[in-house]
């Protein structure tokens, strides 16, 4: 039984037994619980993955005490953070201080809506899916700025200002590189974009512009999620912990969780746009090969591609030094943005002339 039939069955059953409004609310609740569950699992898995990847690169073993190969370490960490006192320091702006982590986490949750996790598994196939993601992801900066300002701490303020400048700049290149795929596909809808890659992923059949856009997207995604080498907002050697210096306990954990979920989201979007989302690896008319590829479940394809990109972003973090703020901005405004603009022009010509496959 596929997920789609299960979802349809639940949907029909709810609408038959309950009042339509109540049924809708119940569906909202089910989706919310599923998202929160996904959040918890993603947080645990990604934090563990980061620690194992970093230890593998750094001649260490990584966590190896709790559970088999230390796999329950993150569970223990989460429990510790949950029982820790959620302290609000004196003289902070209490409302903004407590609201900031909520805002950041809500933004990460909302972004999940248009992502296709597998064939037929999508919360909301909105017709402006890509635009929705680009628009909502810019909201998280408000949470970061709120946290930085409300903390009444100079380190936090510096971190938040850096983060503001950084995210606002890098959104441009991220948006423009997404636009390349939109131009090639002719649709903003996630499911259309995935279906357009049935006979080959855009990375391979989109010519040079798609490759340029992919590289720029990965750079911009790393910057937008505040990961090294663009982790100036946290920059532990300069600003101790940046915008979340004053946070502790579960409030800190929410920022931490949001960071990792954001990584997942940008990598999922990257995988959807450039690597075909859940679409198996297909080559033109090779029927036999395509059939074999179809036997691998679509969720495996999606998560495989996403985690590959996540690994690349983690690889960046444990290899590169951090950029300075002026270098960070000049990289965006002097190099990435002009290249992206030129790239858009190029892809428009290719799409108009119909040179792509």
């Amino acid at each position: 039984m596929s997920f789609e039939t299960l979802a349809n069955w639940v949907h029909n059953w709810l609408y038959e037994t309950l009042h339509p409004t109540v049924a809708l609310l119940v569906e909202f609740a089910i989706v919310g619980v599923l998202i929160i569950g996904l959040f918890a699992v993603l947080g645990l898995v990604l934090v563990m993955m980061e620690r194992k990847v970093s230890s593998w690169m750094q001649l260490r073993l990584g966590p190896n005490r709790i559970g088999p190969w230390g796999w329950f370490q993150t569970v223990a960490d989460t429990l510790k953070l949950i029982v820790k006192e959620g302290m609000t320091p004196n003289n902070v702006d209490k409302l903004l201080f407590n609201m900031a982590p909520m805002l950041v986490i809500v933004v990460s949750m909302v972004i999940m809506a248009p992502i296709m996790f597998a064939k037929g598994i999508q919360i909301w196939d909105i017709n402006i899916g890509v635009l929705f993601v680009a628009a909502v992801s810019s909201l998280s900066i408000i949470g970061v700025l709120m946290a930085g300002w409300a903390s009444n701490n100079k380190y936090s303020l510096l971190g938040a200002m850096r983060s503001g400048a950084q995210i606002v700049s890098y959104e441009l290149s991220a948006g423009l590189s997404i636009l390349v795929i939109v131009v090639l596909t002719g649709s903003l809808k996630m499911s259309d974009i995935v279906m357009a890659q049935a006979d080959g992923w855009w990375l391979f059949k989109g010519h040079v512009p798609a490759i340029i856009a992919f590289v720029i997207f990965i750079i911009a995604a790393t910057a937008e999620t505040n990961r090294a080498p663009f982790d100036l907002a946290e920059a532990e050697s300069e600003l101790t912990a940046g915008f979340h210096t004053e946070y502790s306990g579960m409030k800190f954990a929410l920022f931490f969780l949001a960071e990792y979920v954001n990584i997942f989201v940008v990598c999922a979007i990257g995988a959807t746009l450039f690597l075909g989302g859940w679409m198996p690896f297909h080559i033109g008319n090779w029927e036999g090969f395509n059939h074999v590829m179809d036997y691998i479940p679509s969720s495996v394809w999606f998560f495989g591609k996403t985690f590959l990109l996540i690994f690349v972003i983690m690889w960046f973090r444990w290899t590169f030094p951090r950029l300075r703020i002026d270098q960070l901005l000049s990289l965006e405004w002097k190099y990435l943005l002009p290249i992206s603009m030129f790239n858009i022009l190029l892809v428009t010509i290719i799409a108009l002339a119909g040179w792509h496959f």
Partner: protein
Amino acid sequence: MYRETDIIQTIPGTDEMVINVGPQHPSTHGVLHLVITIDGETVKKVEPHLGYIHRSIEKMCESLSYRQFIYTTSRMDYLSAHINNHACALAVEQAMGIEVPLRAQYIRVVMDELTRIASHCLWWGSVAMDCGAVTPFFLAFREREMINTIMEETCGARLTMNYMVPGGVMFDLHPNFQRDAKAFLAHFRSKIDEYDELVTGNIIFQNRLKGTGFISKADAISYGCTGPTARGSGVSCDVRKWYPYEVYQQVQFDEILETAGDSYARYLVRLAELRQSMSIIEQLIDNIPTGDFQAKTKAVLKPPKGEFYSRVETARGELGVYIVSEGGTTPYRIKFRSPGFSNLSALDHMVRGQKLGDLVAVMGTLDLVIPDIDR
């Protein structure tokens, strides 16, 4: 609206604000307290505050005998503990007129250079970490660990070796020493290329260091900078070349000089010094002569009345030991001229007008060890 409780305040009439970096801060490598004035991201002024780890080592030395006081200096610059002890031993030997056996001289120089490699390794890791790359720190510790193991075998300790005594070294070399040291050199020769690949050649790293933390040759001299910090500005100041002690006169090595004067020049100097230290050890390790490892000295050392000064090149620069003797069993007064203190004083000059991120990177290239600054 102005509130008493607002911490984010600017200096009245300007956009500048004062920010405390340290004494508890991840990148000051100890309990250094910097009061910096910043205008946005730009550093306007840096004011180092010392005294958080002052243990009055100089005063303590006045109540310790000439054999004992040497070991307090291991706790000054703990990354080149061996070389500190060496400076004190040289001063006492000069005061007492002790002739050090050739074997002891060879052992001392080999140990000094091993310590220098260990110290520069740690520095390499920490400067990369100051720039935001964490992995090099662990790679550097791999090599440093091998040296520590070699030290442990011969000296019995890993960090504060206490191996030098007036007149030689405390014990003879461990039988495995030469084999292990050569194995380490062979290992390190391949790894140092990895260092270059991972960090030196990295475009982000180069951009972070080039053109920042500039100090001219004249300024380096007037601030009293020594060691790689001064040599990065083209000041020839290697004590091993200018005032050779022990067997440094007989070994072939180059004094590394860079003229750019920026952080990257200091980085290159230290990295090249690693290779020079390896070459020094390679020249000596097979030729350690047989004989005594320690000169015959009296149980109680009583130097004649007078003033004695000795200097050595530590991993950070010139360490001077100044002893005033009244003819008793303990020194009347001891003064250490530590390299870190003078190098730190140039920090304000180096980072004015640069970004906050540069401050951390420049501090990394100065290779500050706080207990050395704050004795």
